[in-house]
Protein backbone atom coordinates (compact mmCIF):
# COMPACT_ATOMS: atom_id res chain seq x y z
CA UNK A 1 0.00 0.00 0.00
CA UNK A 2 1.26 3.43 -0.85
CA UNK A 3 2.37 5.69 1.97
CA UNK A 4 1.98 8.92 0.03
CA UNK A 5 -1.42 9.45 1.56
CA UNK A 6 -2.45 12.14 3.97
CA UNK A 7 -1.08 12.06 7.45
CA UNK A 8 -4.28 13.08 9.14
CA UNK A 9 -3.22 10.83 11.97
CA UNK A 10 -0.60 13.40 12.95
CA UNK A 11 -3.32 16.00 13.06
CA UNK A 12 -5.43 13.64 15.16
CA UNK A 13 -2.74 13.64 17.81
CA UNK A 14 -2.43 17.40 18.04
CA UNK A 15 -6.11 18.30 17.80
CA UNK A 16 -7.75 19.70 20.95
CA UNK A 17 -11.51 19.14 20.52
CA UNK A 18 -12.83 21.60 23.14
CA UNK A 19 -10.88 24.53 21.77
CA UNK A 20 -11.86 23.68 18.21
CA UNK A 21 -15.57 23.51 19.01
CA UNK A 22 -15.30 26.93 20.57
CA UNK A 23 -13.60 28.33 17.47
CA UNK A 24 -16.13 26.82 15.12
CA UNK A 25 -18.95 28.46 16.96
CA UNK A 26 -17.30 31.86 16.57
CA UNK A 27 -16.63 31.44 12.87
CA UNK A 28 -13.90 30.17 10.64
CA UNK A 29 -11.64 33.23 10.57
CA UNK A 30 -10.46 33.10 14.14
CA UNK A 31 -7.62 30.65 13.99
CA UNK A 32 -5.04 30.46 11.26
CA UNK A 33 -2.10 28.18 10.61
CA UNK A 34 1.05 29.77 11.93
CA UNK A 35 2.36 32.07 9.17
CA UNK A 36 5.86 30.67 9.36
CA UNK A 37 4.64 27.11 8.93
CA UNK A 38 2.45 28.14 6.00
CA UNK A 39 5.28 30.02 4.35
CA UNK A 40 7.58 27.04 4.84
CA UNK A 41 4.98 24.74 3.27
CA UNK A 42 4.42 27.07 0.31
CA UNK A 43 8.14 27.43 -0.24
CA UNK A 44 8.69 23.66 -0.21
CA UNK A 45 5.84 23.00 -2.62
CA UNK A 46 6.81 25.78 -5.01
CA UNK A 47 10.38 24.49 -5.10
CA UNK A 48 9.10 21.03 -5.97
CA UNK A 49 6.74 22.31 -8.65
CA UNK A 50 9.50 24.26 -10.36
CA UNK A 51 11.16 21.03 -11.45
CA UNK A 52 8.14 18.78 -11.98
CA UNK A 53 7.60 17.73 -15.59
CA UNK A 54 4.52 15.48 -15.27
CA UNK A 55 1.04 16.88 -14.61
CA UNK A 56 0.25 13.83 -12.46
CA UNK A 57 3.29 14.44 -10.25
CA UNK A 58 2.35 18.12 -9.94
CA UNK A 59 -1.17 17.17 -8.82
CA UNK A 60 0.15 14.54 -6.43
CA UNK A 61 2.65 16.97 -4.89
CA UNK A 62 0.05 19.65 -4.16
CA UNK A 63 -2.58 17.21 -2.91
CA UNK A 64 0.02 15.63 -0.61
CA UNK A 65 0.65 19.14 0.75
CA UNK A 66 -3.11 19.37 1.39
CA UNK A 67 -3.20 16.07 3.24
CA UNK A 68 0.16 15.80 5.01
CA UNK A 69 0.06 16.29 8.76
CA UNK A 70 2.91 18.78 8.47
CA UNK A 71 1.01 20.38 5.55
CA UNK A 72 -2.63 21.49 5.68
CA UNK A 73 -3.53 18.28 7.48
CA UNK A 74 -6.71 17.42 5.58
CA UNK A 75 -7.69 13.76 5.54
CA UNK A 76 -8.01 13.54 1.75
CA UNK A 77 -8.01 15.83 -1.28
CA UNK A 78 -9.18 15.64 -4.88
CA UNK A 79 -8.56 17.59 -8.03
CA UNK A 80 -11.27 17.98 -10.66
CA UNK A 81 -10.54 19.59 -14.01
CA UNK A 82 -12.95 21.19 -16.45
CA UNK A 83 -13.43 19.04 -19.54
CA UNK A 84 -15.97 20.63 -21.87
CA UNK A 85 -19.11 21.18 -19.84
CA UNK A 86 -18.06 18.91 -17.02
CA UNK A 87 -15.84 19.09 -13.96
CA UNK A 88 -14.13 15.72 -14.14
CA UNK A 89 -12.37 13.97 -11.26
CA UNK A 90 -8.68 13.70 -12.17
CA UNK A 91 -6.53 12.99 -9.13
CA UNK A 92 -7.00 12.04 -5.51
CA UNK A 93 -4.79 11.58 -2.48
CA UNK A 94 -5.66 10.11 0.90
CA UNK A 95 -7.43 7.09 2.34
CA UNK A 96 -10.66 5.86 0.80
CA UNK A 97 -12.30 4.67 4.00
CA UNK A 98 -12.00 5.17 7.75
CA UNK A 99 -10.54 1.68 8.10
CA UNK A 100 -7.96 2.39 5.44
CA UNK A 101 -7.14 5.69 7.13
CA UNK A 102 -6.46 4.01 10.48
CA UNK A 103 -4.32 1.35 8.83
CA UNK A 104 -2.31 3.76 6.69
CA UNK A 105 -1.78 6.41 9.33
CA UNK A 106 -0.76 3.81 11.88
CA UNK A 107 1.77 2.38 9.43
CA UNK A 108 3.10 5.86 8.67
CA UNK A 109 3.47 6.66 12.36
CA UNK A 110 5.33 3.41 12.97
CA UNK A 111 7.66 4.01 10.07
CA UNK A 112 8.08 7.70 10.87
CA UNK A 113 7.02 8.67 7.35
CA UNK A 114 6.61 12.40 6.72
CA UNK A 115 4.80 12.74 3.39
CA UNK A 116 6.20 16.19 2.63
CA UNK A 117 9.70 14.76 2.61
CA UNK A 118 8.69 12.52 -0.26
CA UNK A 119 7.88 15.50 -2.47
CA UNK A 120 11.54 16.07 -3.29
CA UNK A 121 11.84 12.67 -4.99
CA UNK A 122 8.42 11.55 -6.19
CA UNK A 123 8.12 7.93 -7.21
CA UNK A 124 6.28 7.86 -10.54
CA UNK A 125 4.93 4.37 -9.87
CA UNK A 126 3.42 5.40 -6.52
CA UNK A 127 1.93 8.52 -8.08
CA UNK A 128 0.23 6.48 -10.80
CA UNK A 129 -0.94 3.91 -8.24
CA UNK A 130 -2.45 6.69 -6.12
CA UNK A 131 -4.32 8.07 -9.12
CA UNK A 132 -5.61 4.59 -10.04
CA UNK A 133 -6.64 3.88 -6.44
CA UNK A 134 -9.17 6.71 -6.52
CA UNK A 135 -10.56 5.97 -9.99
CA UNK A 136 -14.04 5.08 -8.75
CA UNK A 137 -14.33 8.10 -6.42
CA UNK A 138 -13.00 10.45 -9.08
CA UNK A 139 -15.53 9.15 -11.60
CA UNK A 140 -18.35 9.69 -9.07
CA UNK A 141 -17.18 13.22 -8.27
CA UNK A 142 -17.44 14.27 -11.94
CA UNK A 143 -20.38 16.59 -12.45
CA UNK A 144 -21.69 18.91 -15.19
CA UNK A 145 -20.73 22.55 -14.68
CA UNK A 146 -23.91 24.27 -13.55
CA UNK A 147 -24.95 27.89 -13.30
CA UNK A 148 -23.43 29.39 -10.18
CA UNK A 149 -20.03 27.71 -10.50
CA UNK A 150 -18.86 30.70 -12.55
CA UNK A 151 -19.54 33.03 -9.60
CA UNK A 152 -16.96 31.35 -7.38
CA UNK A 153 -14.06 33.62 -6.64
CA UNK A 154 -12.54 32.39 -3.39
CA UNK A 155 -12.14 29.14 -1.51
CA UNK A 156 -15.03 28.28 0.77
CA UNK A 157 -16.38 25.58 3.01
CA UNK A 158 -19.34 23.73 1.57
CA UNK A 159 -21.89 22.09 3.88
CA UNK A 160 -24.98 19.97 3.26
CA UNK A 161 -27.34 22.86 2.62
CA UNK A 162 -25.11 24.56 0.05
CA UNK A 163 -27.14 26.18 -2.78
CA UNK A 164 -24.84 24.92 -5.58
CA UNK A 165 -25.79 21.42 -6.84
CA UNK A 166 -22.12 20.63 -7.63
CA UNK A 167 -21.15 21.18 -4.02
CA UNK A 168 -24.10 19.15 -2.75
CA UNK A 169 -23.14 16.36 -5.19
CA UNK A 170 -19.55 16.30 -3.94
CA UNK A 171 -20.68 16.30 -0.30
CA UNK A 172 -22.96 13.36 -1.03
CA UNK A 173 -20.34 11.36 -2.96
CA UNK A 174 -17.69 11.94 -0.29
CA UNK A 175 -20.19 11.62 2.58
CA UNK A 176 -18.65 14.78 4.00
CA UNK A 177 -20.07 17.03 6.66
CA UNK A 178 -18.01 19.92 5.37
CA UNK A 179 -15.80 20.27 2.37
CA UNK A 180 -13.07 22.70 1.38
CA UNK A 181 -13.85 23.89 -2.14
CA UNK A 182 -11.01 25.75 -3.87
CA UNK A 183 -12.21 26.98 -7.27
CA UNK A 184 -9.75 27.62 -10.08
CA UNK A 185 -11.29 29.97 -12.60
CA UNK A 186 -10.35 31.05 -16.12
CA UNK A 187 -12.23 33.81 -17.95
CA UNK A 188 -15.17 33.56 -15.58
CA UNK A 189 -15.53 29.82 -16.09
CA UNK A 190 -14.35 26.99 -13.87
CA UNK A 191 -10.94 25.64 -14.94
CA UNK A 192 -10.85 23.15 -12.09
CA UNK A 193 -11.53 22.71 -8.43
CA UNK A 194 -9.70 21.22 -5.45
CA UNK A 195 -11.81 19.48 -2.81
CA UNK A 196 -10.58 18.44 0.61
CA UNK A 197 -12.18 17.25 3.79
CA UNK A 198 -11.60 15.65 7.17
CA UNK A 199 -14.00 12.75 6.77
CA UNK A 200 -12.25 10.67 9.43
CA UNK A 201 -11.10 13.13 12.08
CA UNK A 202 -13.86 15.73 11.54
CA UNK A 203 -11.37 18.41 12.53
CA UNK A 204 -12.89 21.78 11.61
CA UNK A 205 -11.33 23.78 8.81
CA UNK A 206 -10.19 27.32 9.50
CA UNK A 207 -9.83 30.48 7.51
CA UNK A 208 -6.04 30.34 7.50
CA UNK A 209 -6.19 26.86 6.03
CA UNK A 210 -8.45 28.15 3.27
CA UNK A 211 -6.00 30.89 2.35
CA UNK A 212 -3.09 28.46 2.21
CA UNK A 213 -5.27 26.03 0.25
CA UNK A 214 -6.06 28.75 -2.27
CA UNK A 215 -2.40 29.56 -2.74
CA UNK A 216 -1.48 25.90 -3.15
CA UNK A 217 -4.28 25.39 -5.66
CA UNK A 218 -3.03 28.32 -7.71
CA UNK A 219 0.49 26.90 -7.63
CA UNK A 220 -1.03 23.67 -8.88
CA UNK A 221 -2.84 25.38 -11.71
CA UNK A 222 0.35 27.10 -12.88
CA UNK A 223 2.28 23.82 -12.62
CA UNK A 224 -0.44 21.90 -14.47
CA UNK A 225 -0.58 24.43 -17.28
CA UNK A 226 3.19 24.33 -17.59
CA UNK A 227 3.48 20.53 -17.43
CA UNK A 228 0.54 19.99 -19.78
CA UNK A 229 2.11 22.40 -22.24
CA UNK A 230 5.40 20.56 -21.86
CA UNK A 231 3.64 17.24 -22.43
CA UNK A 232 1.92 18.57 -25.55
CA UNK A 233 5.27 19.88 -26.74
CA UNK A 234 6.88 16.49 -26.11
CA UNK A 235 4.01 14.75 -27.86
CA UNK A 236 4.38 17.07 -30.86
CA UNK A 237 8.10 16.44 -30.87
CA UNK A 238 7.50 12.70 -30.71
CA UNK A 239 5.04 12.91 -33.63
CA UNK A 240 7.51 14.96 -35.64
CA UNK A 241 10.23 12.42 -34.95
CA UNK A 242 7.90 9.59 -35.96
CA UNK A 243 7.11 11.44 -39.20
CA UNK A 244 10.81 12.04 -39.82
CA UNK A 245 11.55 8.38 -39.12
CA UNK A 246 8.76 7.36 -41.48
CA UNK A 247 10.25 9.53 -44.21
CA UNK A 248 13.69 8.15 -43.51
CA UNK A 249 12.27 4.62 -43.63
CA UNK A 250 10.66 5.34 -47.00
CA UNK A 251 13.99 6.58 -48.30
CA UNK A 252 15.66 3.49 -46.90
CA UNK A 253 13.03 1.27 -48.50
CA UNK A 254 13.62 2.93 -51.88
CA UNK A 255 17.36 2.59 -51.52
CA UNK A 256 17.08 -1.01 -50.42
CA UNK A 257 14.75 -1.80 -53.29
CA UNK A 258 17.27 -0.35 -55.68
CA UNK A 259 20.42 -1.71 -54.05
CA UNK A 260 19.16 -5.10 -52.89
CA UNK A 261 16.16 -6.12 -54.94
CA UNK A 262 17.60 -4.96 -58.26
CA UNK A 263 20.67 -7.20 -58.21
CA UNK A 264 18.63 -10.17 -57.03
CA UNK A 265 16.05 -9.64 -59.79
CA UNK A 266 18.86 -9.26 -62.31
CA UNK A 267 20.73 -12.39 -61.21
CA UNK A 268 17.51 -14.41 -61.11
CA UNK A 269 16.36 -13.07 -64.47
CA UNK A 270 19.64 -13.93 -66.18
CA UNK A 271 19.62 -17.41 -64.61
CA UNK A 272 16.10 -18.01 -65.95
CA UNK A 273 17.11 -16.84 -69.43
CA UNK A 274 20.21 -19.03 -69.40
CA UNK A 275 18.11 -22.03 -68.41
CA UNK A 276 15.41 -21.28 -70.99
CA UNK A 277 17.83 -20.84 -73.88
CA UNK A 278 21.56 -21.24 -73.24
CA UNK A 279 23.49 -18.80 -75.44
CA UNK A 280 25.22 -20.13 -78.50
CA UNK A 281 28.62 -18.68 -77.62
CA UNK A 282 30.68 -19.35 -74.55
CA UNK A 283 31.61 -15.70 -74.47
CA UNK A 284 27.97 -14.63 -74.01
CA UNK A 285 27.44 -17.34 -71.41
CA UNK A 286 30.44 -16.23 -69.40
CA UNK A 287 29.48 -12.57 -69.65
CA UNK A 288 25.97 -13.23 -68.41
CA UNK A 289 27.19 -15.50 -65.63
CA UNK A 290 29.65 -12.82 -64.62
CA UNK A 291 26.85 -10.20 -64.51
CA UNK A 292 24.74 -12.53 -62.35
CA UNK A 293 27.64 -13.31 -59.97
CA UNK A 294 28.52 -9.65 -59.65
CA UNK A 295 24.87 -8.77 -58.89
CA UNK A 296 24.70 -11.41 -56.16
CA UNK A 297 27.96 -10.15 -54.61
CA UNK A 298 26.58 -6.64 -54.61
CA UNK A 299 23.39 -7.75 -52.88
CA UNK A 300 25.41 -9.73 -50.34
CA UNK A 301 27.61 -6.76 -49.54
CA UNK A 302 24.64 -4.43 -49.23
CA UNK A 303 22.88 -6.89 -46.94
CA UNK A 304 25.97 -7.08 -44.72
CA UNK A 305 26.11 -3.30 -44.49
CA UNK A 306 22.44 -3.23 -43.65
CA UNK A 307 22.85 -5.78 -40.83
CA UNK A 308 25.80 -3.87 -39.36
CA UNK A 309 23.96 -0.58 -39.67
CA UNK A 310 20.82 -1.90 -38.00
CA UNK A 311 22.82 -3.46 -35.16
CA UNK A 312 24.56 -0.20 -34.41
CA UNK A 313 21.51 2.02 -34.93
CA UNK A 314 19.52 -0.07 -32.45
CA UNK A 315 21.35 1.65 -29.63
CA UNK A 316 22.20 4.85 -31.41
CA UNK A 317 25.84 3.90 -31.64
CA UNK A 318 28.21 3.99 -34.55
CA UNK A 319 30.57 1.11 -35.01
CA UNK A 320 34.16 1.88 -35.83
CA UNK A 321 37.33 -0.09 -36.44
CA UNK A 322 38.81 -1.00 -33.07
CA UNK A 323 42.15 -2.70 -32.46
CA UNK A 324 41.11 -5.36 -29.97
CA UNK A 325 44.64 -6.26 -28.79
CA UNK A 326 45.30 -2.67 -27.74
CA UNK A 327 42.06 -2.59 -25.72
CA UNK A 328 42.98 -5.85 -24.01
CA UNK A 329 46.44 -4.54 -23.08
CA UNK A 330 44.99 -1.31 -21.73
CA UNK A 331 42.29 -2.92 -19.61
CA UNK A 332 44.54 -5.67 -18.25
CA UNK A 333 47.15 -3.08 -17.32
CA UNK A 334 44.54 -1.08 -15.42
CA UNK A 335 43.59 -4.16 -13.38
CA UNK A 336 47.15 -5.33 -12.71
CA UNK A 337 47.65 -3.63 -9.30
CA UNK A 338 44.31 -4.90 -7.97
CA UNK A 339 44.99 -8.40 -9.32
CA UNK A 340 48.49 -8.42 -7.79
CA UNK A 341 47.06 -7.45 -4.39
CA UNK A 342 44.82 -10.51 -4.59
CA UNK A 343 47.52 -12.87 -5.79
CA UNK A 344 46.04 -13.10 -9.28
CA UNK A 345 48.21 -13.23 -12.43
CA UNK A 346 46.91 -11.46 -15.49
CA UNK A 347 48.07 -12.82 -18.85
CA UNK A 348 47.08 -11.60 -22.28
CA UNK A 349 47.67 -13.04 -25.74
CA UNK A 350 47.02 -11.49 -29.12
CA UNK A 351 48.60 -11.61 -32.57
CA UNK A 352 51.45 -9.16 -33.17
CA UNK A 353 49.62 -7.60 -36.11
CA UNK A 354 46.53 -5.48 -35.37
CA UNK A 355 43.26 -7.41 -35.23
CA UNK A 356 40.42 -5.04 -36.10
CA UNK A 357 36.81 -5.51 -35.01
CA UNK A 358 33.62 -3.46 -35.53
CA UNK A 359 33.00 -2.07 -32.08
CA UNK A 360 32.63 0.98 -29.88
CA UNK A 361 35.68 1.55 -27.69
CA UNK A 362 33.88 2.47 -24.41
CA UNK A 363 31.41 -0.41 -24.83
CA UNK A 364 34.14 -2.92 -25.56
CA UNK A 365 36.22 -1.67 -22.64
CA UNK A 366 33.20 -1.97 -20.35
CA UNK A 367 32.55 -5.55 -21.54
CA UNK A 368 36.15 -6.53 -20.87
CA UNK A 369 36.23 -4.77 -17.50
CA UNK A 370 33.06 -6.57 -16.40
CA UNK A 371 34.49 -9.93 -17.46
CA UNK A 372 37.77 -9.27 -15.63
CA UNK A 373 35.91 -8.11 -12.50
CA UNK A 374 33.83 -11.27 -12.66
CA UNK A 375 36.99 -13.37 -12.93
CA UNK A 376 38.66 -11.50 -10.05
CA UNK A 377 35.62 -12.19 -7.87
CA UNK A 378 35.93 -15.88 -8.68
CA UNK A 379 39.60 -15.82 -7.60
CA UNK A 380 39.06 -13.70 -4.49
CA UNK A 381 39.86 -16.39 -1.92
CA UNK A 382 42.69 -18.39 -3.44
CA UNK A 383 44.31 -16.33 -6.19
CA UNK A 384 44.95 -17.83 -9.62
CA UNK A 385 45.17 -16.72 -13.23
CA UNK A 386 43.10 -14.70 -15.66
CA UNK A 387 43.85 -15.14 -19.36
CA UNK A 388 42.63 -12.74 -22.02
CA UNK A 389 43.19 -13.91 -25.58
CA UNK A 390 42.42 -12.39 -28.97
CA UNK A 391 42.16 -14.51 -32.10
CA UNK A 392 40.58 -14.36 -35.53
CA UNK A 393 37.76 -16.70 -36.40
CA UNK A 394 36.27 -15.35 -39.63
CA UNK A 395 33.92 -13.47 -39.74
CA UNK A 396 34.49 -12.96 -36.02
CA UNK A 397 37.21 -11.69 -33.74
CA UNK A 398 37.21 -13.82 -30.58
CA UNK A 399 38.07 -12.19 -27.29
CA UNK A 400 38.26 -14.81 -24.54
CA UNK A 401 38.52 -14.11 -20.82
CA UNK A 402 39.18 -17.26 -18.79
CA UNK A 403 39.95 -17.82 -15.11
CA UNK A 404 40.76 -20.84 -12.97
CA UNK A 405 38.69 -19.67 -10.01
CA UNK A 406 35.53 -21.11 -8.58
CA UNK A 407 33.01 -22.33 -11.14
CA UNK A 408 29.87 -20.45 -11.94
CA UNK A 409 27.05 -21.09 -9.43
CA UNK A 410 24.47 -23.58 -10.67
CA UNK A 411 21.79 -20.85 -10.76
CA UNK A 412 23.79 -18.95 -13.38
CA UNK A 413 24.92 -21.81 -15.61
CA UNK A 414 21.72 -21.96 -17.66
CA UNK A 415 22.03 -18.33 -18.67
CA UNK A 416 24.85 -16.48 -16.92
CA UNK A 417 23.91 -13.28 -18.73
CA UNK A 418 20.47 -12.92 -17.20
CA UNK A 419 20.43 -9.86 -14.96
CA UNK A 420 19.56 -9.65 -11.29
CA UNK A 421 20.91 -12.96 -9.99
CA UNK A 422 23.25 -11.98 -7.22
CA UNK A 423 26.06 -14.33 -6.37
CA UNK A 424 29.47 -13.70 -5.03
CA UNK A 425 30.83 -14.48 -8.47
CA UNK A 426 29.28 -11.81 -10.67
CA UNK A 427 28.81 -9.26 -7.89
CA UNK A 428 25.48 -7.49 -8.41
CA UNK A 429 24.47 -10.00 -11.02
CA UNK A 430 24.19 -7.18 -13.54
CA UNK A 431 27.78 -7.16 -14.81
CA UNK A 432 27.40 -10.17 -17.08
CA UNK A 433 23.94 -9.03 -18.22
CA UNK A 434 25.49 -5.72 -19.14
CA UNK A 435 28.19 -7.52 -21.15
CA UNK A 436 25.54 -9.18 -23.27
CA UNK A 437 23.57 -5.96 -23.74
CA UNK A 438 26.65 -4.03 -24.78
CA UNK A 439 27.86 -6.84 -27.03
CA UNK A 440 24.53 -7.15 -28.83
CA UNK A 441 24.39 -3.39 -29.34
CA UNK A 442 27.69 -3.75 -31.23
CA UNK A 443 26.34 -6.63 -33.35
CA UNK A 444 28.50 -9.00 -31.29
CA UNK A 445 27.62 -11.95 -29.08
CA UNK A 446 28.98 -13.49 -25.89
CA UNK A 447 29.19 -17.13 -24.87
CA UNK A 448 30.21 -18.99 -21.72
CA UNK A 449 31.79 -22.42 -21.34
CA UNK A 450 33.58 -24.61 -18.82
CA UNK A 451 34.88 -27.07 -21.40
CA UNK A 452 38.41 -26.93 -20.08
CA UNK A 453 38.44 -28.57 -16.62
CA UNK A 454 39.05 -26.01 -13.88
CA UNK A 455 38.54 -23.03 -16.16
CA UNK A 456 35.58 -20.72 -16.69
CA UNK A 457 35.67 -18.96 -20.04
CA UNK A 458 33.64 -16.12 -21.50
CA UNK A 459 34.09 -15.42 -25.22
CA UNK A 460 33.08 -12.24 -26.96
CA UNK A 461 32.51 -12.72 -30.68
CA UNK A 462 33.04 -9.33 -32.30
CA UNK A 463 32.37 -8.70 -35.96
CA UNK A 464 35.59 -8.41 -37.90
CA UNK A 465 36.05 -4.97 -39.41
CA UNK A 466 36.05 -5.19 -43.22
Amino acid at each position, binding site marked *: MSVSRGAGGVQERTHRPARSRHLRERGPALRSMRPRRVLDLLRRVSEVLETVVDPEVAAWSVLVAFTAGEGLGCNRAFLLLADGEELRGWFGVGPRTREEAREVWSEMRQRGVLPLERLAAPDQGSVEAEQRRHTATLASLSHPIVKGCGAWRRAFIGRGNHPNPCVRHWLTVLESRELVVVPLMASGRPWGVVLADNFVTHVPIYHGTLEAAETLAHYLRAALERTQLLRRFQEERRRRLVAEHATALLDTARTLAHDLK*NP*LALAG*GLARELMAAPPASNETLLRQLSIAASAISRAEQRLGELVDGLASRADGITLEPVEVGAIVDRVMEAFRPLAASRGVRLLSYHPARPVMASAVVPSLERCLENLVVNALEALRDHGGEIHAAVSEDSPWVRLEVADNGQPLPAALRGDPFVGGITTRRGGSGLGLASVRTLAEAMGAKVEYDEREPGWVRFTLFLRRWS
Partner: protein
Amino acid sequence: MNASRLLFVDDEEGFLELYRTAFARDGYTVETTDTVEGARERVAKGDIDLVVLDIRLGETSGLALLREIKARDARLPVVLSTAYARYQDDFSSWLADAYIVKSSDLGELKQAVRRCLGAGR
Protein backbone atom coordinates in the same frame (compact mmCIF):
# COMPACT_ATOMS: atom_id res chain seq x y z
CA MET B 1 7.67 -12.62 -85.74
CA ASN B 2 7.28 -9.35 -83.80
CA ALA B 3 8.78 -6.34 -85.54
CA SER B 4 8.12 -3.79 -82.81
CA ARG B 5 11.05 -1.67 -81.74
CA LEU B 6 11.54 -1.37 -78.00
CA LEU B 7 13.77 1.08 -76.17
CA PHE B 8 14.94 0.02 -72.72
CA VAL B 9 16.28 2.73 -70.41
CA ASP B 10 18.11 1.52 -67.30
CA ASP B 11 21.27 2.73 -65.55
CA GLU B 12 22.37 -0.85 -64.95
CA GLU B 13 24.08 -2.52 -67.87
CA GLY B 14 23.18 -5.95 -66.51
CA PHE B 15 19.46 -5.30 -66.93
CA LEU B 16 20.02 -4.00 -70.43
CA GLU B 17 21.86 -7.24 -71.27
CA LEU B 18 18.98 -9.23 -69.78
CA TYR B 19 16.36 -7.27 -71.76
CA ARG B 20 18.35 -7.59 -74.98
CA THR B 21 18.58 -11.35 -74.54
CA ALA B 22 15.02 -11.96 -73.44
CA PHE B 23 13.15 -9.61 -75.78
CA ALA B 24 15.28 -10.23 -78.86
CA ARG B 25 14.45 -13.92 -78.51
CA ASP B 26 10.77 -12.97 -78.61
CA GLY B 27 11.34 -11.24 -81.95
CA TYR B 28 11.45 -7.62 -80.87
CA THR B 29 14.01 -5.17 -82.12
CA VAL B 30 15.71 -4.09 -78.93
CA GLU B 31 17.57 -0.87 -78.34
CA THR B 32 19.06 0.11 -75.01
CA THR B 33 20.52 3.14 -73.31
CA ASP B 34 21.74 3.79 -69.78
CA THR B 35 21.30 7.58 -69.76
CA VAL B 36 18.43 10.04 -69.84
CA GLU B 37 20.17 11.98 -72.61
CA GLY B 38 20.53 8.85 -74.74
CA ALA B 39 16.85 8.05 -74.27
CA ARG B 40 15.81 11.61 -75.08
CA GLU B 41 17.80 11.59 -78.33
CA ARG B 42 16.57 8.18 -79.38
CA VAL B 43 12.92 9.02 -78.78
CA ALA B 44 13.35 12.31 -80.66
CA LYS B 45 14.63 10.38 -83.66
CA GLY B 46 11.31 8.52 -83.83
CA ASP B 47 10.36 4.95 -84.87
CA ILE B 48 10.35 3.65 -81.31
CA ASP B 49 7.18 1.68 -80.58
CA LEU B 50 7.49 1.41 -76.80
CA VAL B 51 9.79 2.57 -74.02
CA VAL B 52 10.57 0.53 -70.91
CA LEU B 53 11.84 3.01 -68.37
CA ASP B 54 13.53 2.54 -64.99
CA ILE B 55 12.57 5.19 -62.44
CA ARG B 56 15.92 5.52 -60.72
CA LEU B 57 18.45 6.43 -63.33
CA GLY B 58 21.52 7.26 -61.29
CA GLU B 59 20.88 10.65 -59.77
CA THR B 60 18.11 11.42 -62.25
CA SER B 61 14.45 10.48 -61.97
CA GLY B 62 12.91 8.47 -64.78
CA LEU B 63 9.60 10.15 -63.91
CA ALA B 64 10.88 13.45 -65.34
CA LEU B 65 11.81 11.66 -68.56
CA LEU B 66 8.36 10.03 -68.59
CA ARG B 67 6.75 13.48 -68.48
CA GLU B 68 8.99 14.66 -71.33
CA ILE B 69 8.19 11.66 -73.51
CA LYS B 70 4.46 12.00 -72.92
CA ALA B 71 4.58 15.75 -73.57
CA ARG B 72 6.26 15.04 -76.89
CA ASP B 73 4.10 12.10 -77.93
CA ALA B 74 1.25 11.09 -75.63
CA ARG B 75 0.56 7.98 -77.77
CA LEU B 76 4.02 6.44 -77.33
CA PRO B 77 3.52 3.69 -74.73
CA VAL B 78 5.83 3.82 -71.73
CA VAL B 79 6.18 0.99 -69.23
CA LEU B 80 7.74 1.94 -65.91
CA SER B 81 9.92 -0.76 -64.46
CA THR B 82 11.32 -0.30 -61.00
CA ALA B 83 12.36 -2.19 -57.91
CA TYR B 84 10.22 -0.02 -55.65
CA ALA B 85 6.47 -0.60 -55.74
CA ARG B 86 5.54 2.54 -53.80
CA TYR B 87 6.39 4.84 -56.73
CA GLN B 88 2.90 3.94 -57.91
CA ASP B 89 1.66 6.32 -55.19
CA ASP B 90 3.47 9.16 -56.97
CA PHE B 91 0.94 10.71 -59.34
CA SER B 92 3.74 11.41 -61.84
CA SER B 93 3.90 7.67 -62.44
CA TRP B 94 0.22 7.61 -63.48
CA LEU B 95 1.21 8.97 -66.89
CA ALA B 96 2.77 5.61 -67.68
CA ASP B 97 0.82 2.98 -69.58
CA ALA B 98 1.96 0.25 -67.22
CA TYR B 99 3.87 -0.06 -63.99
CA ILE B 100 5.94 -3.14 -63.35
CA VAL B 101 7.92 -4.04 -60.25
CA LYS B 102 11.22 -5.57 -61.33
CA SER B 103 11.42 -9.29 -60.82
CA SER B 104 13.61 -12.18 -61.89
CA ASP B 105 10.55 -13.38 -63.75
CA LEU B 106 10.13 -11.22 -66.86
CA GLY B 107 6.68 -12.68 -67.57
CA GLU B 108 4.80 -9.69 -66.19
CA LEU B 109 6.96 -7.21 -68.10
CA LYS B 110 6.55 -9.14 -71.34
CA GLN B 111 2.80 -9.28 -70.83
CA ALA B 112 2.66 -5.51 -70.17
CA VAL B 113 4.70 -4.82 -73.32
CA ARG B 114 2.38 -6.97 -75.42
CA ARG B 115 -0.72 -5.34 -73.90
CA CYS B 116 0.57 -1.79 -74.45
CA LEU B 117 1.64 -2.49 -78.02
CA GLY B 118 -1.76 -4.01 -78.75
CA ALA B 119 -3.58 -1.00 -77.37
CA GLY B 120 -1.15 1.54 -78.81
CA ARG B 121 -0.90 3.22 -82.13
